[in-house]
Every structure is written in structure tokens, then in C-alpha cells.
């Protein structure tokens, strides 16, 4: 099979393109996603290819955008809504928590909509363009939450997200958009939601993570392998709700030491849920406390000196791993 090298961003676009090709019920809309291609150019070329009827701009109205998607989804369409930044979805939380999420449970209607939301920092976006809000979405009954770290996963998971009969929050990492490339087949199979992936085997500890931090964890793991001969397993959660508890437990069984890493805030972050899972279901397997490396509970700062201190990275992960292993 022919292969191509693709960025994370291009991979998402390819997934969307295939959905628009194959499925007439797929629509794509949001602020500036039309001819302009969206703030990050993920949808570039799609309006030209599929027409204004399938790919279009909307007014700056996050609540109406998501509300309309609920209406469309319950009538057989599969709307894909782009939030310009995940941060701006906070103006419409009720449409997700109280409308999209509980509709199936309350009424029996299926709500196959997808919200695409660029997340994360590392590029001077400041407090309002860098947030990581996955734990907030994971609280909401009836939603699924996906967060790919690799181009191939991004492509396969967007396909499954859009084809899922439920509302799916599909989180995209802005830092990865152009920083991560992968050589992959130009055809693809959908990747099922709900499955974590062991990106790197290891025996001395496991890092449970997702999004941009998968790459930082892999970097830390390589360094520790070279410098200290520690072998670190890295698990990419990929889907955060419903999450893959079995893979987590298996990883803990194999390593007995757990480090949880995410880019967003520590208190009530998704890492707390993973820690609680492990503490409840794999307590007897642990040789050391469960550690979290996450952002401190401060607004995402703008200045590079501060953002570097704020954002978890391979160095911080490496340090925590050494402490954990040498506990």
C-alpha cells in the first residue's frame, strides 16, 4: 500500500474528507471553517471540494452552533462542529452537559454529533487560547471524549467519532497540529473508540497519558532508558470517556508503579480519575504512591518563561519517574 507522510493536522483533514466523501449526512460547520479553512486551516479546501452546503461558516454563536447540531443529529445528519478554540466552548456548556448528553437517555433519540475542539498550549496563546478542559467534558453523562496524540490515531478516531451514534467531543492538540508527523498508509481503517494503546513497552513504571504529553512521556522514557536503563511503559489513553480501564490495569500489573501525566490543571483534572481508578482496582499491585504530573492550578500564563514553568514536559516527567522508581 502506498504511504504518505502526514502531520496530525493533515491526518484530521483526511479523515474529515473521507467522511464528507462517503457520507452525505456529514456536515461541517463553525466559525471561519469555509473558504478560509478555519483558524488552524484544518478544513482548508473542504468547502471548495464539497460545496457551501456541506461545509460552511456560522455566526459567532457557540450555543446555537451546538444546539443546531443536536437538532440536525436527531434528524439523521452527522454534524461536525468546529470550536475555534476549546476555551470558547465554555459559553455553551449547557448544550453539551444538559442537552446533547442526556438526550438519548431521556428520549431515546440518538445524537450523532461531533464537536472538534483545538486544545492545549506551548505557543504563547495565554489564558484563553491554551486550555485543556477534558475532565470537564468527561463529567458529562452521555458524552464520549476522544483525544488523539498521533496522526494515524487522529485520522482513525475522527472517523469513528463522527460515525458514533453519540455526541463525541473530539479534542485536537494545537501543538501537535504541525509538530508531529507520521509516515502512514494513505488508506485507513477507523480506530474504535474506547481503546488505549501501549506506545512503548516497559517494566519499571507506566506513564498514563494522552494528547501532547504522550510525546513528552516518550521523550522522557527514551532518555531514562539511555541514561539509567529504566524501561518505562507509556500508555496513550486515546479515548477519555468511556476510558479503557482494562489496559490501565494490565499496565499497572506489568509495572507496579504509576505516573499520570496531563497538560491541564491538576485539581480535578482527568488524572485524578485515573488515579482513583488505579487506587480502587489495582491497589494491591502498587509498589509506590500514584503520582501525577500536571499543570499547576493557575491560569495558563503567556510569557514563555512562565509557560515553560507551567507546562509539563519531558524533563518534569523524567524527574517524577526517577523519584517514583527510586521510591
Amino acid at each position, binding site marked *: 500500500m502506498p504511504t504518505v507522510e502526514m502531520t496530525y493536522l493533515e491526518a484530521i483533514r483526511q479523515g474529515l474528507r473521507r467522511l464528507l466523501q462517503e457520507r452525505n449526512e456529514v456536515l461541517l460547520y463553525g466559525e471561519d471553517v469555509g473558504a478560509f479553512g478555519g483558524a488552524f486551516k484544518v478544513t482548508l479546501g473542504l468547502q471548495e471540494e464539497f460545496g457551501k452546503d456541506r461545509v460552511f461558516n456560522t455566526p459567532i454563536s457557540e450555543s*446555537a452552533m451546538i*444546539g*443546531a447540531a443536536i437538532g*440536525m443529529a436527531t434528524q439523521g445528519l452527522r454534524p461536525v462542529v468546529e470550536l475555534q478554540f476549546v476555551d470558547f466552548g465554555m459559553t455553551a456548556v449547557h448544550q453539551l452537559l444538559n*442537552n446533547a448528553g442526556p438526550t438519548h*437517555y431521556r428520549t431515546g433519540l440518538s*445524537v450523532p454529533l461531533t464537536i472538534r475542539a483545538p486544545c492545549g498550549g506551548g505557543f504563547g496563546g495565554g489564558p484563553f487560547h491554551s486550555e485543556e478542559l477534558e475532565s470537564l467534558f468527561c463529567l458529562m453523562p452521555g458524552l464520549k471524549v476522544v483525544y488523539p496524540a498521533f496522526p494515524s490515531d487522529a485520522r482513525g478516531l475522527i472517523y469513528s467519532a463522527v460515525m458514533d451514534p*453519540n455526541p463525541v467531543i473530539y479534542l485536537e492538540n494545537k501543538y501537535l497540529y504541525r509538530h508531529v508527523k507520521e509516515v502512514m498508509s494513505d488508506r485507513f481503517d477507523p480506530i474504535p473508540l474506547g481503546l488505549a494503546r501501549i506506545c512503548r513497552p516497559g517494566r519499571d513504571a507506566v506513564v498514563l497519558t494522552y494528547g501532547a504529553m504522550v510525546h513528552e512521556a516518550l521523550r522522557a522514557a527514551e532518555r531514562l532508558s539511555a541514561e539509567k536503563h529504566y524501561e518505562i511503559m507509556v500508555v496513550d489513553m486515546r479515548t477519555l470517556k468511556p476510558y479503557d480501564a482494562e489496559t490501565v490495569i494490565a499496565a499497572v500489573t506489568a509495572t507496579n508503579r504509576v505516573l499520570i501525566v496531563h497538560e491541564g490543571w491538576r485539581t480535578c483534572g482527568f488524572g485524578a480519575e485515573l488515579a482513583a481508578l488505579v487506587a480502587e482496582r489495582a491497589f494491591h499491585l502498587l509498589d509506590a504512591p500514584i503520582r501525577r504530573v500536571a499543570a499547576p492550578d493557575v491560569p495558563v500564563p503567556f510569557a514563555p518563561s512562565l509557560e515553560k514553568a507551567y507546562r509539563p514536559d519531558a524533563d518534569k516527567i523524567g524527574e517524577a519517574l526517577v523519584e517514583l522508581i527510586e521510591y
Partner: protein
Amino acid sequence: MSERKIESVDDGRWKAVLRCMMLSRAIEERLVRLYHQGRIFGGVYTGIGQEAIGAATSLAAGPSDLFAPCIRNMTVHLGRGETSLNVFRQYLGRASGPTRGRDGNVHYGCTANGVYAMISHLGAMLSVVTGAVMARRRQGRDAVGVAYIGDGATSTGDFHEAVNFAAVFDVPVIFLIENNKFAYSTPNAEQFRCKQLVDRAQGYGIEGLCADGNDAVELFLLAQDLMSDIRQKPRPILLECDTMRMRGHGEHDDFSYVPRELLEKYAARDPIAQARSRLAEAGLVAKAAADDIELQVRSEVDQAYQQALEEPVPDPADLMEGVYADR
């Protein structure tokens, strides 16, 4: 108001309008009694005195039209074909009801009838029905929508976003403001400063109309005109209906804050009494025929309540079932 005459509509339809209002009144009066007898779990919110609006608009519509009723719109459910039995099942939290006991009182709908189940967050359903109408029209059906909203709910951001969104995409939805003078205890004067809410239409670049919300006959004729008009030339319309909330916000509320004169003024304009006499005068529904309907609906209500009462409540074992859709 419409230029068409009352005679342009056949008597069967007028009977249906009358019956819809009477049935709604009978059901709600029963619910009120049950509430005060302590036989209802949760709250009871009625549309007593506001029946004309939902009856006229839902019965003037076509089969593929879509509705987003609000708290006071029992007549929309009934006008679109909901049974009294299902209504009592809903209020009594029966497993056989439209939400299977998972949601309560006004929070139900019926897909086959084109009626959405409201969520409580005021204004949130306006964009949902907008999206649903967009979807149906894309599928080649000539649907129009009606979204009902209270005077108080026009202050929500959701109202604004949805009406503007529908205007931009030329979606044929009637945004029907039911101005019943109060939002819970808050009178119009503490809710907005415009003379009439229909003054908002121009700001969305859409047409706005006022109507007497207690005159089912004129409203029905007007609704027919508006619907056929926007069905041909798709666009939203703002329709403000003058009416009055004749009881408390819910049955727990003694509404002592409402000036008695206001209640008396509107009591003299009761929508059912008015429609009865107007239709009798026009020779379309004789007094005896109306009395017959009245008797019928009362006995229908007795039966429906008794039957619902005997039906089982949800099995707690089903609690977890159906959070996610399978397809």
C-alpha cells in the same frame, strides 16, 4: 392578522382545536388537583389560560413540521397527537411513558409527532429546532418549525443566538413568544425595556408580528398563513402572543404577587370560552357539540389517569441502560 375567514377551515379542524384546548385544560386541572392532594411526585406547571397558542399553531401545521414546546404548551403535545395516557404516564413517572420515567412533567416529546422534549435551560431548544428544520429541508422535506418561548426566556443569550442563526440561514421557524406577563415572579418591567418583544424582529432582519394569544380562531388562521408563507419562502418570523399566566409559576406558587385585575381581565378572555362562542356564532361548532367534546375529554382524562396509575414504575435495574445509543 389573517385576511382569511373562519369559514375557510372546515368544522372538523375547528373541533380539533377546541378539543385540544379542552383536553389540555382537563388534564391540567386534574394534575393541579393531584398535586394539591400530594399525589404527584415533583412539580406541576400548567398552561391554563394559554391553551389557544399551542392548539392553534400545532393544528395549523403539516405532518413534517417540527415543534419545540415550552413549559406552558400541553396543547402542542396534544395537537400533534400525544395521548392523555402518555401525559399521565409522564407525570406519574411510569416506565411506559414517553421518557420512561427518566424525566418528569413538561420534559417530554415525541419524535413521530415532530415534538422535541424541552430541557429546562430556557432558550436552549430554539437552536435545536432550527437545526432540525435545516436537516429536514436538506433531506427534501418542506418542514417548518415552531419554537415557543416565554417573555422571561427572551433575556437569555440562547434566544438571541438562535434567532440570529435562523435568520442568517433562512430557516423557516416561527419563534413564538408567549408573553404571559411574568417570568416566575418577575414582571415584564423587570425583564426588558422594549415596548413589545416583537420590537426585536428588526434587529434580526426578520418580520415580527403581534397576535392575541387568547384567540384560537384568529391565531389558527394566522398560523396557517405564516406557515405556508415561510414554507414557500423560507425565513424565520418572530410572533409575539399576548396572553396571561393564570396560575402560579408552578402549583407550589400562590402567585400572590400577580395583580388580581390582570387575572380578571384575562379570565374574561378565556381562550376556550372565546373559541366556543366564536365557533358557535359562526355556525361551525354548535354549543351542544362543544358540550359533547367537553364530556368526552373529561371521561378520557379519568380513564387515562386510572390506567397510567396502574402501570408499573421503572425498574431500578434499568437505571444504567441507554446512557449511550447503540446506533
